[in-house]
């Protein structure tokens, strides 16, 4: 697979044309600098046009790009002295979730993330970043440890979802996810979550109950993968692009719905183009949010997190006006 996404093809073609012209000019000793300058101008225009109009389905493909930085890539670039800790102390060590201790600008933190593989072998070992219950329970163990020692928690979300398999069900996949949601709500330390790639379903949310939830510009976050939605709604998983457009899965959508607090800008063309730049943008925001949250008392942190999730949801309350006075009289007579 090439670095370029299909929607970037016109750019790649134009770049190739410019290169050919330069080469031809050099070989023949002809001066094409005027034409080349014009083409470069056109290239900039086209770039602006393409990158400012990335559709939700194109973002889905960017979020899944095989060269997109993973949790471990970003951990290595953002933090110092990362020390990985292993195992859930109950069953095993799920490599689909990584975590441990690290320093963020000198401050000790606990850092966690779902981890996709870098190649096929790695992906098989890590179940393509889809955790079993032991992965979620490892994360919970490390979060409780952070809570005990008063360390802030940073999580990176990047998973298609929890692993759907026999043993995962036998060992309580539902309970493992549910337990994380409940326990994360109780944490008395700052929790910041960053959706870096694909945030899919309960498996993503199991690391996602934070005081702040940030999303990379091209990351997606949804209740079910667009492929899954397409196969349920239209009995056709190949209509994922169509589902991606309908489901409001982009960082911009989620910011509007107040599910996330901030969008982290990516290097032009996506985070895979420049890991350092992507990491620096995340780091800057982590430091800012951590500074704000560190001013809060542990009770306030719990309350702040509760309020954040408590207000999510859109509905209508159809007050039955005729009944309201009756209820009032009942209350009045009781008094």
């Amino acid at each position: 697979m090439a670095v370029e996404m299909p929607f970037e093809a016109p750019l790649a073609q134009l770049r190739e044309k410019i290169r050919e012209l330069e080469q031809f000019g050099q070989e023949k000793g002809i001066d094409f600098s005027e034409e080349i300058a014009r083409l470069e101008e056109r290239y900039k225009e086209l770039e602006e046009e393409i990158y400012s109009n990335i559709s939700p389905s194109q973002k889905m493909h960017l979020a899944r790009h095989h060269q997109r930085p993973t949790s471990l890539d970003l951990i290595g670039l953002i933090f110092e002295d990362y020390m990985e800790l292993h195992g859930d102390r109950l069953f095993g060590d799920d490599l689909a979730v990584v975590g441990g201790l690290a320093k963020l600008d000198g401050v000790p933190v606990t850092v966690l993330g779902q981890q996709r593989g870098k190649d096929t072998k790695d992906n098989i070992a890590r179940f393509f970043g889809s955790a079993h219950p032991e992965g979620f329970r490892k994360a919970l163990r490390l979060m409780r440890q952070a809570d005990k020692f008063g360390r802030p928690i940073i999580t990176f979300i990047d998973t298609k979802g929890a692993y759907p398999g026999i043993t995962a069900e036998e060992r309580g996949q539902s309970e493992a996810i549910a337990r994380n949601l409940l326990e994360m709500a109780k944490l008395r330390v700052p929790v910041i979550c960053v959706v870096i790639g694909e945030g899919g379903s309960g498996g993503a949310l199991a690391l996602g109950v934070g005081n702040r939830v940030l999303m990379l510009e091209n990351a997606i976050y949804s209740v079910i993968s667009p492929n899954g939605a397409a196969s349920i709604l239209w009995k056709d998983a190949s209509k994922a692009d169509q589902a991606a457009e309908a489901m409001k899965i982009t960082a911009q959508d989620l910011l509007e719905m107040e599910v996330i607090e901030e969008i982290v800008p990516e290097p032009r063309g996506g985070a895979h183009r420049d890991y350092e730049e992507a990491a620096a943008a995340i780091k800057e925001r982590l430091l800012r949010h951590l500074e704000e949250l560190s001013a809060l008392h542990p009770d306030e942190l719990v309350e702040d997190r509760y309020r954040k999730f408590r207000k999510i949801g859109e509905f209508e309350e159809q007050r039955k006006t005729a009944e309201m006075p009756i209820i009032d009289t009942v209350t009045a007579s009781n008094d």
Partner: protein
Amino acid sequence: MFKDLFQKKRKYATIPSERLGSDPLPAEGDRPKREIPEGLMNKCSRCGSIQYSKELEKNLKVCSSCGHHMRLNAMERIRMTVDEGSFIEYDEDLVSVDPLSFPGYASKLEQQKMKSGLREAVVTGEGLVGGFPAVMAVMSFDFFSGSMGSVVGEKITRAIETATEKRLPLVIFSTSGGARMQESILSLMQMAKTSAALARLDEQGGLFISVITDPTTGGVSASFAMLGDIIMAEPGAVFGFAGRIVIEQTIRQKLPDDFQTAEFNLQHGQLDMVVHRKEMRATLSKLLEMHTPKGGV
């Protein structure tokens, strides 16, 4: 010699010629049907046995021949569980909107209301069970497959908060296909919202009994349904995180018939007990009694 041949042929000729080469028996649909008035009889979806609807009602919609626990509408469940006349409904005026302008969602919501006679997939309120008060949330699979969107999440969260404020025990009957896709991320966040509310109830020392009924999967299974202090399920109820079809597609093999049933989950440590519908009310009131502070209610 001629005689023998003739006789053989006569034997063959006994088969009516028009049936030769086609199915000798009429197809299923062509068989004469016994006319049964709509609603008088009920066929068990598991064993196929036919029984009088009235008998079935008396039997709490449990098949008398195979013990299959049929799915219940929230109102039927409340009638079976709560002391007569004691139920006070909460938040019945909360209705879904179409926040994402999702194709087909608004019209499907209307269909579901007609179909189930409910306004959403959960009914919440408080009532007495065997004389013991409890806050209750009862889900209904016949409304949008019991899926959890903003309204289900909000009603359940409010019920949990009321239980916390009033220091009442909480009982939730779950049945759900999972989070409601048509509200996408808002549905997913209801898992966090309900679980966070349960965290508060938990810290306060409140009792939460989760009753899992057939089927309970996805976002409901992976949030409040599995967070009970006591978790029970009806016999045969299927519950788990991922659906059977998704797992079969992932591992490319057929799953055993009992996979994800209440009995399977009990065996794997995911449940406290499997409770027959006939015993449900008595079991709940016993548990509520044991958690009632001394001196009574």
